[in-house]
């Protein structure tokens, strides 16, 4: 089975590989895993406390090409979005963009879980109460 060109591109030139300061209150860290294949993915976001815009995102993934491409794409997509907007990214968007075959869907699921986990961590650090109004204003 061949990888799509987009997967190969992200795999060979992964965007935003790296680490953000885990202890910063502006940083949320999500660490997720797919037991089906033993992949581990860490995705971090840096959120502007005033605007709730995700200004930076980094990832580190140990896994197959599709898992690396999915997390690389996820960091590209969340950057510039507000936290509330980032929460609307779904794994099916990632599947479509990367043309992932059915056996690799769990990689896209992992990337969505990672975004959600990173945002969850950031919210915990900042108290969910602060994050809620922004969420509400977008979803209305």
């Amino acid at each position, binding site marked *: 089975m061949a990888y799509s060109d987009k997967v190969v591109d992200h795999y060979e030139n992964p965007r935003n590989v790296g680490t953000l300061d885990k202890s910063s209150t502006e940083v949320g860290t999500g*660490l*997720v*895993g*797919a*037991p*089906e*294949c*033993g992949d*581990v993915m*860490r995705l971090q976001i840096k959120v502007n406390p005033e605007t709730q815009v995700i200004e930076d995102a980094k990832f*580190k993934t*140990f896994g197959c090409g599709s898992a690396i491409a999915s997390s690389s794409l996820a960091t590209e997509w969340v950057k510039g979005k507000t936290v509330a907007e980032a*929460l609307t990214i*779904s*794994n099916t968007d990632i599947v479509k963009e990367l043309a992932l075959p059915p056996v690799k*869907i*769990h990689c896209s*699921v992992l990337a*969505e*879980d990672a975004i*959600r*986990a990173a*945002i*969850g961590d950031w919210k915990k650090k900042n108290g969910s109460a602060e994050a809620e109004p922004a*969420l509400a204003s977008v979803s209305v």
Partner: protein
Amino acid sequence: MTYFEIFHLPPKLGLDTAALEKQFYKLSREYHPDRFASKSVEEQNKATEMSSLLNDAYRTLKDPIRRTEYLLELEGIELEEQSVKATAAAREAGKEKKQIVPPDLLEEAFELNMQLEEMKMAKQMGDDDLQLRKDLEAAKANFTAMLDASQKTLEALWQSWDAAVDSGDDGAKDAAKDEMVATLNRRSYLRNLVRDVNAALE
């Protein structure tokens, strides 16, 4: 017909692989195509089908990990499907998904992968010194020991499962299933780590 049924076995995990092999040869002879040469096409086809089912069943049941995975599958545990559904549910509820894998195991697997990558990078830089090799060997021994330990854990869980099947205790069966799933998950990470450390040592 399940793989257990073809061998006339109850759906239990602690099975005698020597007896399984004996039974496999016995049944292989029974379903051998030569014995059906003079029979109707329908019977011949049936025998071929049984013969292939028998081979799949034997390959699956003789391997302790595949046997466990197969039993869990029979019990309706579909890890991947559960995972996809849980993600969709979390998205709709606007909540964080509860990970199937315990966070401490993820941390551990992530850290071990980081160490391994550092060692591999040092090696690529031509820094293949004695200390590095020692570190890799130590990591390999560590991961292998953890993998062996997970096998022991699994074997103990087989006993719990088999005892629960005998006593018809559904609560105990569910508990054993959950723990088997957790152990198999842990194993996936350890298996990858062993594979990667071996590749780094080559």
